[in-house]
């Protein structure tokens, strides 16, 4: 989930402080991560990319493009909204934001979850739960553009664009224009 979008539910507006990655840096990181996905899995057989709504979806599509360029094969891309699986339902307003469209039965697939920012790990936990309702994947891997730390669950990424130490009260925005750290005011 994009942190910036979450900000409207918390109140306040996102105020950018410093640019951490340029648009070109993000593109390079995506290409590198795509190669790592192909390398780790010995090609793209059974690989399915699933972008987490909403911040992970454009990144999943771009990674699929990079995988197509590198391996000459099309990778299926799906989208997943984890609202119904969150563990904070009832504690804060939780609403589905966008469509879930998982391309096929995931039994036997190697699923690469793609998100923009890895923070507490709770979105990924919800995503793992959701995925299990679509079949038994052979393996699930996690690709994130930014790992900002502060994990609350035993979850770690397999592919990382950038490790970014942050304060808990900061926010990280990933967009077409790159990665920006800011605060909510």
């Amino acid at each position, binding site marked *: 989930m994009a942190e910036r979008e979450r900000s409207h539910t918390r109140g306040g507006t996102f105020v950018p402080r410093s640019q951490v990655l340029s648009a070109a840096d993000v593109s390079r990181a995506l290409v590198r991560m795509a190669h790592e996905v192909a390398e780790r899995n010995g090609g793209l057989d059974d690989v399915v990319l699933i972008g987490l709504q909403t911040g992970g979806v454009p990144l999943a599509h771009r990674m699929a493009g990079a995988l197509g360029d590198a391996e000459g094969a099309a990778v299926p891309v799906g989208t997943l*909204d984890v*609202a*119904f*699986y969150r563990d904070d*339902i*009832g*504690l*804060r*307003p*939780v*609403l*589905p934001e966008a*469509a*879930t*469209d*998982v391309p096929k*039965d995931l039994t036997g697939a190697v699923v690469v979850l793609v998100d923009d920012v890895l923070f507490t790990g709770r979105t990924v936990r919800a995503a793992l*739960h*959701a995925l299990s*309702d*679509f*079949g038994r994947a052979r393996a699930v891997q996690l690709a994130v553009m930014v790992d900002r730390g502060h994990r609350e669950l035993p979850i770690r990424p397999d592919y990382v664009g950038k490790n970014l130490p942050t304060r808990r009260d900061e926010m990280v925005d990933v967009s077409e224009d790159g990665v920006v750290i800011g605060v909510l005011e």
Partner: protein
Amino acid sequence: MTHLLSVSDLGREGIEEVLRVADAFAEVGSRPIPKVPTLRGKAIATLFFEDSTRTRLSFETAAKRLSADVLSFSAAASSVKKGESVRDTIETVEAMGMDALVVRHSSAGVPVQVSRWVKHCKVVNGGDGWHEHPTQALLDCFTVRQARGDIEGLRVIVVGDIRHSRVARSQVLAYGALGAKVTLVAPGSLLPPSLEGWPVEVTDDLDAVLPSADVVSLLRLQAERGSGAFVPSLREYTSRFGLTARRAERLGPDAVVTHPGPMIRGVEIASEVAELPQTLVTRQVTNGVAVRMAVLFLLLGGAR
């Protein structure tokens, strides 16, 4: 949302939110495992003081697909038969730790009354007398929107026993709030005593309004509420207000037909018409589960 007693509790924004969330639940319904853990630990009771098959099954399916626990109550098999009052029944059920009550009753206003008695439970109107049946109207709107896109500006005709129909009241409010133009089509005897304040047009000439209608909502003659006494004969009713095969030929190419069920084939709808692709009855039933999941989720899943 505190309770869902009437469509008017929602307003346009609230209706659109229900429909948007229902979209997401419709996708859940298409999965290999059509169930989500969203309302784990919540308990929902369906309290039906009047008979029903589809509404009760639909609410119970919706609750189970949200992983809530469901308790089912029907007056016929309860202490109501021994003389227990509705209020005592509600207090008993709430004391068992229910989080939401779906209430159906043959008297208008019972769900509103129940909502005043409960301490913390959310109350959903599952149909009260001639008054309202909000989730039915919401699922009708959802189904029409799925088939026709935006409801704004559509011409909706509601045909049949308006007088005794809680569905008609809720439909007028829901379609009206979403910007449709609603026309009631019925013999004078089957119109409510007063239509003051209803944002509708009224006619008793189905053939005049049928060709230009985008949505034809058919209602059942409610024999259990004595509708039969309001028309000279069923045959005459069908000849003027039934959607016969011949009439259906005059429907517009994109027009859709809805019916809340149960259908009485051969009276308000001909059997052949019920089978036409633009008759959305089965889709209404399927969508009903998604819409009721959305309502229960918005009532029980929201932040306090």
